[in-house]
């Protein structure tokens, strides 16, 4: 399985930046697993968190090509450092009177929240690292997954590891 790297980029919140970055990735053939972007404490600056697949030489190009984009202020490969990584998923799973209790138990184990319920299905909200998300998908798949919506990973370096 190819290596995955998590890259955090601070970008100027200008019209077209997301497009330019996405276009850069596709034109250079980089493999995006997920891309999440949102404002930071400074509304003129957004943070993009990108999970990229590829070996070290690919990663080196990804970081440098991103950095070269005029609106990209700073690029950090946080896979190397200690970092906090989270993703939010909404998952709609088939549930009826025979299966509902077990599904609720599974949700409790994963500290997930039930956010919607109806006679035939249940929607669960779960946050966590990538492996936790994968694990709950695995546990729920036998019940029949109807829909999934994921935000993609966001991440920040741990200051505690530096200090």
């Amino acid at each position, binding site marked *: 399985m190819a290596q995955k790297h998590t890259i955090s980029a601070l970008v100027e919140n200008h019209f*077209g930046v997301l497009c330019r970055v996405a276009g850069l990735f596709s034109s250079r053939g980089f493999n995006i697993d997920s891309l999440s972007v949102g404002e930071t404490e400074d509304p003129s600056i957004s943070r993009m968190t990108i999970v990229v697949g590829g070996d070290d*030489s690919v990663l080196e*190009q990804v970081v440098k090509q991103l950095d070269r984009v005029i609106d990209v202020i700073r690029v950090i490969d946080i896979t190397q450092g200690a970092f906090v990584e989270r993703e939010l998923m909404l998952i709609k799973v088939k549930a009826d009177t025979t299966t509902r209790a077990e599904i609720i138990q599974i949700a409790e184990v994963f500290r997930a929240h039930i956010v919607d319920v109806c006679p035939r299905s249940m929607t669960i909200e779960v946050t966590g690292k990538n492996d936790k998300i994968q694990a709950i998908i695995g546990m729920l798949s036998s019940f029949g997954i109807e829909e999934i919506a994921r935000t993609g990973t966001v991440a920040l370096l741990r200051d505690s590891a530096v200090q």
Partner: protein
Amino acid sequence: MEMTGAEIICESLLREGVDTIFGLPGGAVLPFYGALSGYPKLRHILVRHEQAAAMAADGYARATGKVGVCSATSGPGATNLVTGLMAAQMDSVPIVCITGQVPRAAIGRDAFQETDITGITLPVTKHNYLVMDVRDIAPAIKEAFYIARTGRPGPVLIDVPKDVLAGEKIEFEWPAEVDLPGYNPPGEPDARQVRVAAHLINQAERPVILAGHGVLISRAWDELRELAEKAQIPVITTLLGIGAMSTEHVLNMGMPGMHGMAYASLAIDRSDLVIALGARFDDRVTGRLSDFAPGAKIIHVDVDATEFNKNIVADAPVLGDLKDSLRALIPMVQPNVHLDWIKETDTLRAEHPSLFIRKSDVLLPQQVMKQISDETNGEAIIVTGVGQHQMWAAQHYGYKEPNSLITSGGSGAMGFEVPAALGAKVGRPEKTVWSIAGDGGFQMTLCDLATAVENKIDVKYAILNNGSLGMVRQWQDFFYDKDFFATIYSGNPDFVKLAEAYGIRGIRVTKQEDVAGAIQEAMETPGPVVVDFVVKEDEFVYPMIPAGESVHEMLEEPEAESIIS
């Protein structure tokens, strides 16, 4: 004084030292043209196709070192610039393009002549702008020029909606500074990187310098010569690096790669150190990467960090402006002689006469190029298109000065020669400028002969006319079983009559003995002249290293053997 957006653009261009704009107006950009007509210091040269505007700005920039400027209208006017933008992007040429856009309220509604040009040009510009407020115009222009000309130069496009050009008026304020937190072009190199590089140079026994476009961009040709002479290192120039060192200099070993001189590629193959200066190890230079310079360590000096380890792993990367980097490096390099190595390279030159032109009854294109070189004493500016003629122009002209070969290398855009030559001549009116075309490329952009006539731009146009799409035909001959499908041009016009239709002197040459006279006549005739050299149809460019191969699979001119003693 309050000004419209269009007037602010004009004022801003003046502040950036612009004196020439190549362009073609249209509806969305008309307010800019309305303002422009009141600014006589901004000379506007009206072209016949927007592609010519972009390529003329490119030729102007390469010839002068200044930022070239072009303008077009929205929609198809803007999209016609794209090939020219790509050419500038691939060869790191600074140009700024101003395009009109439909009014803001119409954007996104499929308006007449509307297109998302900023979206379309994302991959072919260093940066671009869609200016939605008249207050953002001056800062955008100041930033655009700064971005275009600094670091690794490149094209910048500024798209301005019509109602921003001709709407609200404001006071013109020229910003004191640019604010680009994400852009920090390198200057001085890191001292440690320089030390590592110097150490490698001092240890090397068979070094070569690979000089690329960066030497010309950074105006570092004196430093190049100083380094080469101090340590007696042969200098090999890429296509875009030609002119960085005079072809007459004893250390100049010519051009490497797919159609480079055999001795240059062989020297790299046998070297133990390649000092790449402002070159990017393009596939036309390297051939199969795993067989490129197998015994050599690599020093890579470049202003763009993305080039390090992109194609070739650098043992000693040096990030910085090339001129600054060489100035830091030269004092740390010991004077050296490499006598055995120099002798070996001399033997390579003797054993591989790559510039040999054989005798022929039919006029050979190589002969034409050599004659143009002789008649201009190697001092003209040569602007080429793309194809076989381009390679012969790179090989057989004796370039003496920097920025004397202007050619579309990375992009390989046919038809580059006619408009780029216009730009070069406008930028350097004191030089003789020859546009060298194939009959294929010439037909793509010949409409701008009218621009030369209208503006009295004295370019001499040579067509190496073999009635075919020559380079493609050569590939079909070598690699596709001589299936000359779609490469024979049997419907070519009479180029002399075509020239005369534009009011230009046209000369046809079919015999070797008439070549010199035709060239002289062209240069003595005031104004643009077209010379149609009817050359041998199925001539091949040699040497050739087929795509994806290495120097070991190089094909050389068969008859060259006969002159090796």
